[in-house]
């Protein structure tokens, strides 16, 4: 039962990365790929119907973690207290920027929100990437199962560690690059004209950077966690998922070269999904890895919820999940085709 909930939580978090990822990427790039007000509104029209629903995956994933692994969630979220609040403030600014921007027809008003939209969209992937980096590198869990992390210490990735060090920032930069590329491919699919051309050019460069950074990051991860590559080697499922990521990366380049917009974007989705799942398969069952002398890692088993209650939760999950997918399909169906620089947010 705990394995099932681990899979559900990983699935939901990955859905969050893939879905909110494209609107993070679009936000991070929009100052570059969309220059005029009409072009910026085209970007907003492309993500406007989806971004709020995408963000719900974060809350749904948080809910799955809460019910599945209350002890892990409590320890992790309170240990990352500072980083979580930075993320919350960015999410708040970003949501307001998207929703309030087009209400007023004024160049200064709109420029202000465009700036905040971009800044928050750049910072969020870096923070989420750094959070993943912390999980891979390990946190200073105490014997009682709690920990507190400073925002930064000496950036060495050795104890005493902070949330930000060279490794976690590297993961953050990788996340930003990958999600910016993902967003560019989404815009390449959903927009046309100059915005599409600039997005396509950006996607090509960003995905080359992703291709370079990926092996670097894998080596760095092995450096902070000596068990990472052996775990990968010994788990066929992780092999398979890493293969999906690689196939996705190839599909991105093939799609871009052939001018096939949707396959390129789907390739990017496959890359992010394969990479996230492969990582989750490698570290299982560890959820909060301890570094330091007396620390004991929290695993899916030691930090998991009551299995009987989780059986009940699986029942309502099987009712609610198809409904969520249904809404998702309805919204994508209703907004199929290219986005029009329309009245999104106008009043």
């Amino acid at each position, binding site marked *: 039962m705990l394995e099932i909930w681990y899979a559900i939580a990983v699935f939901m978090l990955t859905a969050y990365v893939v879905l909110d990822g494209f609107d993070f990427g679009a936000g991070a790039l929009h100052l570059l790929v969309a220059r005029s007000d009409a072009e910026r509104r085209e970007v907003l029209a492309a993500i406007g119907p989806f971004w709020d629903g995408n963000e719900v995956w974060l809350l749904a994933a948080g809910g799955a973690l809460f019910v599945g692994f209350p002890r892990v969630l409590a320890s992790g979220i309170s240990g990352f207290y500072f980083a979580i609040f930075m993320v919350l403030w960015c999410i708040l600014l970003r949501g307001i920027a998207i*929703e309030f921007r087009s209400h007023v027809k004024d160049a200064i008003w709109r420029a202000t929100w465009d700036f905040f939209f971009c800044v928050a969209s750049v910072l969020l992937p870096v923070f989420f990437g750094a959070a993943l980096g912390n999980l891979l590198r390990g946190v200073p869990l105490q014997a009682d199962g709690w920990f507190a992390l400073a925002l930064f210490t000496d950036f060495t990735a050795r104890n005493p560690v902070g949330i930000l060090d060279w490794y976690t920032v590297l993961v953050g930069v990788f996340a930003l690059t990958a999600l910016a590329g993902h967003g560019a491919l989404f815009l390449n699919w959903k927009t046309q004209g100059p915005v599409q051309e600039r997005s396509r050019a950006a996607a090509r460069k960003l995905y080359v950077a992703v291709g370079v950074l990926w092996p670097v990051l894998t080596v760095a991860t092995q450096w902070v966690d000596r068990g990472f590559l052996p775990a990968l080697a010994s788990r066929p499922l992780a092999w398979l998922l890493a293969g999906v990521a690689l196939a996705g990366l190839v599909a991105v380049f093939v799609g871009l070269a052939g001018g096939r917009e949707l396959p390129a974007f789907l390739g990017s989705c496959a890359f992010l999904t394969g990479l996230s799942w492969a990582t989750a398969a490698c570290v299982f069952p560890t959820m909060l890895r301890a570094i330091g002398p007396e620390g004991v890692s929290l695993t899916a088993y030691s930090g998991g919820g009551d299995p009987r209650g989780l059986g009940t939760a699986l029942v309502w999950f099987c009712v609610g999940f198809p409904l969520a997918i249904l809404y998702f399909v309805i919204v994508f169906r209703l907004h199929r085709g290219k986005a029009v620089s329309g009245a999104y947010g106008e009043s």
Partner: protein
Amino acid sequence: MGDPAFLHRLQFAFTIIYHYLFPVLTMGLALLVVIMKLLGLRPGGEAWNDAARFWIRIFGINFAVGVVTGIPMEFQFGTNWARFSSYAGNVVGHTLAMEGLFAFFLESSFLSLLIYGEKRLGRVGHTLAAFALFAGSWLSGYFIIATNAFMQHPVGHAVAENGTLRLVDFFAFVLSPWALAQYAHNMMSSVVTASFVVAALGAFYTLEGRHLEPARLFLRLGTAAGLVSAVLVAFPTGDVQAKLVARYQPVALAAMEGRFESGPQAEMTIIGQPNVRERKLDNPIQVPGVLSVLAYGHFYSNVRGLNEFPEADWPDNVELLYYSYHIMVGLGTILIAIMGIASLLAWLGRLEKSWIMLWVLMLAFPFPYIAVIAGWMSAELGRQPWLVYGLMRTVDGGSPSVHSGTVLFTLLGTCGLYAVLGVLFLFLIFREIEHGPRPHAAEDAAHA
């Protein structure tokens, strides 16, 4: 100030009160928008449709602020209340996760279709989108109230071997009597709030002499829905809620009423100041026997006073609890009276000519907000000193690894951000009110 437990509470209280100012309107307004859209489906209902379009824009701005201030609420269970999450997560994790799955996906998927999709969806489709938002926001309210109801009156759980709580009876937990009563009471108060806002804007436009046609509809719907919901808030929902408090939280009831001595024919206090040091009520004006009847249904029922309980189990802020409760009850009564008179005038066809009543309606809209916040403060202060009633004390629920310097930093940062947000919100709302409702043709011209 050095006490992290105090700062955890202050931050949660500030963020939840600020957050709730928005959903309290959107939940009620969602129902009123559905009613407007349904009236708009009738032949010749174009005016109702125009009214709905205007309120959907107000709804959209409120909803956006509600969403961005709501996300920090979910996270604070982990950031600030980690011991509570670890202790009760096996139970309350269910309702919080179900809220995401059943309510948030529904709301977020149809929000932009409701706000920007009228032409794309057509009339019936747009009405369905309004219904989706109504269903989503009311479901969301239910899951949150079921979570709170467990903290107020835990049922359906057992204590596991490792000392944490686990769920044994899902339906007892999700459909607890406390949750059902509190939900009915809360949702009616949300409809009251929305009705007052709709009626206030109708009164404002009528007094200004512009948008007279939509203003007439706002007044009609606002006063009718306002009267029905304001009465339902008091009876039966408030009454049932009060009886549950009397039964399961007698010490909270005693503090709400400022009652120190036990005894039958308990009096209801209209006004007075609780003097906790001397354990008495200063300058009381009271009606004998009423509290006994309200709490237990009988004039001679004994209502226990605070003296009967150990001081360690008293709500830790008796004075604030007393005032919150009295403000809620007092305002609730006044709001019924206002809507009663306004509805009578509307029924006689004289509301739009009665400038006194229009002024009262226009200026009354903040009071349902105050009553609702005071009501929630009564519920949450009355629950103290417990986080989960009878099981976990609030001082034991905070995050062990977070110290007060950290919490004060995030509290100040959040206050600053929310202050800016409040200014922007008011600016956009005033702009919408200035633009006013527009018929469809004018709407198209505005976008061109």
